[in-house]
Every structure is written in C-alpha cells, then in structure tokens.
C-alpha cells in the first residue's frame, strides 16, 4: 500500500502571506526573549539561593513552578500553535491531561508524606545521612567522612 499524507484540502490551512509571516516572526522572537529572560532569572535565583538561605523554602518552590508553567504555556500556545486551534481542540488536549496529572500529583505527594514516616522507609546508610547533614550545614563536599566510618559499620 502506498503511503501518502498529501491530502489536498489541508493546503488551505498551512499558508500565509509575506506580511503575515513578518508579524508571526516578530511574535515568535518576542516569545523567545520572554523565555530567555525567565530562564536567566531562574538561574540567577537558583545561583543565589544556597548563599541566601532560600533553598527549600516554599516561596522559592512556588516561584520556580509558576515560572516553569509560564514557559510551558508559551511553548504550547505559541510554538506549538495550540492557541490558534479551535476551542474544543484545546479542551480535548488540555482537559484530560490536566485532570489526570492533578490526580497523580496529589496522590504522589500524599503517599510520599505517608511513606516518609520512619517506620515506612528503608533504612539508610548512616554515612550517607551524615554526609547530607554535613552538606546541609555547609561543610565541604566529599572526603572527611572517615570519622563517621566506625559509627556506620557498627550499625550493620
């Protein structure tokens, strides 16, 4: 069977003029600059976070996730042209996905909290726990874990 996808009727949808193209390009470059600025902003915040004690704070998480969703929105609506499709196609794409992901996120965080209780977790290597504590309290990364070695071996 011969493969073909050149149904003539869709030619109509895929064309625009030189002026329209100019407008479209200007818009796309604007989107690019917005996304670049967002990314650089995220990197600066991420770079400063450890020194400023922002790491792991709720507002930082909310900020990063909001900016991520903003970037995702620009990609889907402008780059993937979902904004130009008919209304019900947008719904067909976004609604089932959003419902399903909202449920999955909810259930993972909920169960993650439950299973993070000490009695529900696998026992962690005490040396590893010490290493992470040191890192969090600002000690130098790597090496220097020999002191805790005996304590770790005893445990097992």
């Amino acid at each position, binding site marked *: 069977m011969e493969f073909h*996808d*050149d*149904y003539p*009727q*869709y*030619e*109509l*949808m*895929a*064309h*625009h*003029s*030189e002026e*329209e193209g100019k407008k479209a*390009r200007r818009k*796309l*470059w604007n989107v*690019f600059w917005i*996304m670049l600025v967002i*990314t*650089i902003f*995220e*990197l600066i915040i*991420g*770079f400063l*976070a450890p020194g400023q004690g922002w790491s792991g704070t709720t507002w*930082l*998480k909310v900020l*990063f*996730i909001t900016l*991520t969703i903003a*970037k*995702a929105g620009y990609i*889907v609506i402008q*780059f*993937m042209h979902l904004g*130009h*499709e008919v209304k019900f*196609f947008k719904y067909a*794409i976004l609604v089932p996905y959003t419902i*399903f*992901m909202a449920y999955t*996120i909810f259930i*993972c*965080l909920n*169960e*993650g909290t439950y299973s*993070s209780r000490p009695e529900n*977790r696998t026992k962690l*290597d005490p*040396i*590893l726990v010490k*290493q992470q504590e040191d*890192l969090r309290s600002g000690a130098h990364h*790597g090496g220097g*874990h020999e002191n*805790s070695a005996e304590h*770790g*071996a005893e445990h*097992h």
Partner: protein
Amino acid sequence: MAHSVEIDQKEAWSGGQSPFRISYGKIFMWFFLISDALTFGGLLCAYGFIRHKYAEVWPKAENVFTHFPFVEQHLPLAYVGLMTFILIMSSVTMVLAVEAGHRNDKKGVIIWMLWTIIGGLAFVGSQAWEWYHFIVGTSEGAMRNVWDQEQGKYVLERIYGANMTVNEYGVPQFANFFFFITGFHGTHVFSGVVINFVIFMNVLKGTYERRGHYEMVEKVGLYWHFVDLVWVFVFTFFYLL
C-alpha cells in the same frame, strides 16, 4: 489568519468534516504527544514521590552538577543553563522553519531546520558530557557501607561517582531517577534529531515543494517543541528545586 479558511465539506475527512478543523496528521501527533506527556508526567510524579519520601537526604543539584567545560571552578547551574539555552534556541529555529514553510519558502525551511538539527546534536552531546561527569564523580569520592555478597555483610568502601546501586552524592534513588528521566528525554531528543534529519532530506529533495505545502515540517515541529517542553520541567525539578 489562514487558519480560519473554511474547508469545503467534500474535501474533508470521509466522515463529512474534519474534526476540530485540523489535519489528520496534526491531530494524531497531538494525541501521541499527550500519551508521551503522560509518561513523562508519571515519571516526574514518581520522582516527586521518592524525593518527598527521602527529603532530608536528597542531594542538592548545586552540590552535584558543578562542572563546566574548560573551567576548573565550581560553577553550579551554569552548564545546565547553557543546555537549556541550546534547546530553547533550537525550538525557536524549528518554529521559524515552520513559519517559512507556511510561505513555501524552501530556502528558509532548509536553513532553519539545519540550525535545529545542529542545536539538537549540541544538546545530546552536552547531556553525554553531563552523564560522564556524574558517572565518574569527584576525585575524593565518598564513603559508603556497600553490601558484599561473598562476606555476607556490609563493608566500608570509598565509592566514586554514581551508578544504579551507589551514588557518592546521596541516595541512590537520585541517580536512578536522573538516569531514567534524563535518559528517556535524551532518547526523545536523539530520535527528534533523526526525524528532523529525514524531513530535512525531504525538503532538500523538494518533496514538499512538489506537494505544495510543508505540513510535515509542522508535524515534526510539534514533536520537537514537545521535547523542549519536557526539558523545561526536567530542568526545574532536577536542577532548580
């Protein structure tokens, strides 16, 4: 816009009209992308679950990915920032190729698709470099109690880098998810480059010029943007948070 052009009922799908006034190929590319997005969404949620569970011992990205090519200093986030820039840039060149296709501008499509392919290859190469440094690890390594099958007990060992069972930077699950999610994404980028290359060759041969429209470029463009979209999330959840 050209999108609002009425389609003659006779020319549409055999059902009588085109659902959503969008072509068959594009609809099913979207449906495929939704299923793929569910896979990535599921993976990232599983990552969230395990990270939440081991929150206080989860390694921080700024302590793990600190290298930059040809620079000796610790530069957290700089390299992944560069990778993100490369991928966003290649997404822009792709959308410009699609736009050139709308004007039947063959030369424009060729140039922008070529840039997209180069960007994709640069990204895959950067990821390989990142993996290499993650697997090899630091020169100091870290001490761990590693299970010894022969002795039947845990023995203290110095380990370097990360693999599926041990990870010098923290819990092994971090490495498992890092390998799986960035690996799955990297596979998508690589297959995207291959698909882009096939379409690029067709553009060079003039297949779409003869056909009268560049819809195939638009369809692979959808896939390519999706790859960029996934990276935006991977970037946030692995490197920023």
